[in-house]
């Protein structure tokens, strides 16, 4: 009887030590779910979800405070991916969320720009180059198309240009063919 108790106690102590060690050794920093959600979000940092960026939105989704259908740049495909990740039902875009738009980049009309730096301060990804009283310009390759620079501009010199289809970004289309023979 006593030996059985001792054996059980010994096993409990050993396993407890192993678990305790593992908890310290394999400790995950931060919330891995937030990172997984953040990896699905398009990183435009546009704030259309009413959160100040993609990471805060991801944190809110992980905490169960936000719906998965609040990210227009991610499109329906993004919602689907979030639904798959979180094991919840797909939800179409809600009434108060803007509709997804074609991907675009900002363009500064350099003739009108007065060099006020307001857009530079608004850009979440440092995609605008310029200095006070100097002309500003968009680094198109870095622009996420978030439109956050458009509103602060006092002279309305920033416009959003839809990215055109070129040979370099052209994609094969989904096959469409007739179901009947030509007569």
């Amino acid at each position, binding site marked *: 009887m006593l030996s059985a108790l001792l054996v059980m106690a010994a096993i409990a102590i050993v396993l407890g030590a192993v678990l305790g060690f593992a908890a310290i050794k394999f400790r995950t920093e931060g919330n891995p779910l937030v990172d997984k959600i*953040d990896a699905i*979000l*398009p*990183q*435009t*940092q546009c704030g259309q979800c009413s959160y100040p*960026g*993609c*990471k805060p939105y991801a944190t809110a989704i992980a905490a169960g405070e936000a719906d998965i259908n609040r990210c227009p740049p991610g499109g329906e495909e993004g919602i689907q991916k979030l639904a798959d990740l979180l094991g919840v039902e797909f939800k179409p875009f809600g009434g108060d969320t803007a509709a997804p738009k074609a991907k675009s980049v900002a363009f500064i009309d350099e003739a009108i720009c007065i060099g006020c730096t307001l857009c530079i301060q608004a850009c*979440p*990804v*440092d*995609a605008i180059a310029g200095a006070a009283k100097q002309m500003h310009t968009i680094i198109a390759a*870095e622009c*996420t198309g978030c439109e956050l620079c458009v509103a602060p501009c006092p002279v309305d010199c920033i416009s959003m240009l839809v990215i055109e*289809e*070129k*040979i370099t*970004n*052209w*994609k*094969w*289309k*989904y*096959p469409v*063919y*007739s*179901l*009947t*023979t*030509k007569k």
Partner: protein
Amino acid sequence: MEISRVLIDNEKMRTLYHFHGGIHPPSNKSQSTQVAIARAPLPSRLVVPLHQHAGEAAKPIVQVGDHVLKGQLIGMPDGFVSSAVHAPTSGTITAIDMQLIAHPSGLPNLCATLIPDGKEEWIPHKAIDYRDHSSAELQQLLRMAGVVGLGGAAFPSDIKLRIGKQKITSLILNGAECEPYITCDDMLMRERAAEIVQGAEMLRFMLDASEVLIGIEDNKPEAIAALKQAIADRGMNHEVVAIPTIYPGGSAKQLIRVLTGLEVPSGKLPTDIGVQCFNVATAYSVYRAFAQGEPLLSRIVTIAGNVRQAQNYEALIGTPIDELIALGVALPDTNGYIMGGPMMGIPLPAVHVPVVKATNCVIAASDRLFPPPPPALPCIRCTRCVEVCPADLQPQDLFWFAQSKEFGRAQAFSLFDCIECGACSYVCPSHIPLVQYYRFAKSEIRAREHDKQLADQARERHEYREHRIEREKQEKADKLAAKEKAAQAAKLNSLQQPTPQQQAELADLEAHRAHIRELAQSGVEHPED
């Protein structure tokens, strides 16, 4: 595995291997091999695209109005995988703008338009002896000579020669030319075998390969004989191997399999298993680049299909295809043109688009030659496509995933090992355009990977910006705190008791003052009073 033995020369036997599947479409090659290669006349204008090769487009280095000489560089390679573009003849550059090219999108791309002056005046160029140069120097020469793979993919040859520390045992020259109608390599091998075998020797030198195998499908006996003769004349060790005629035997991975029995693993390159493969026409261009100092200015183009006289032409790069078609005379019921073969070729968006380095063949199409496919029916999972797939894939599953846009699963089923040969579509009893689905899925996956990369980049920049703003705030707060601390310290200092040294100084000062006062008092009695 099936293995067959073929007789090489008289006694030597080489073991040949089989790849999975394959089909036997009607070859339709004899029509264009009746007459020798003809030089296409100088066209009225040349439209030279600056992006004719895989990788980055060349950067134009000439301006509108410039007079250029034949062989003059007009597009500088720009980026690691890129190649040079040259003026195919002497003349004047009249435009550098977006023009329609042979691309499945039907979208325009940057081209230089050249009006020939008819003089064919060469820029100074000289031959080199390749044996005096290192492989790296020769690679650079090929890059600047604009030599790219002429089999159809137009991949810059210098990149394929950059092998690092890998040991290449076999250099394979691809003369299989498995697609129906195309005979440009066949005719080149028949007529210019000597140059090809010398080009092969140059490639062998650069790769330091132990052996050179020239694989040719056994439906080209004249080409096989010509190459054997050229090799014998020079006492070379290159081996010409007749391989069974089966489509797609001319695809690089399948040819490597047939000749060596080795399989290029998924996602790896032939060099990883010690093999490198070049088209015979590429070897010919390498020979021209070194032995004659000539950049790639022209290529052999098969004009076939619904034409009065099918023939091969040596055409300058940039020649409008309609001028070549006019030489073969398209029949009145022609209803379109295909660049490449009927299996893998692309329909031309317009017949006036220019010949590029990848243009091996132009087929005039008609309803008689290529009847419109009957309506596509649902997949019945008969797996005929599995039987013919040379990449050993499951085409019916890939079709299912592509159709339902389950790209992750398509990738898991090795979608990217598909060589888009079209054998599956060819045998499909439901007439489903399978390859179109695979192309769609591949380009969607590539676009998503690109978007993901951009998103990761944006995340990094955003996080860095947040970090920077945080740091600036911290620095400002620290500065303010330091200032406040300094002010407080000063205030505190004034309230503090003087140190003994200061006390001594103060006492001294006080004593001095007392002495002055004393003097002043004693000075009341002024001597002059």
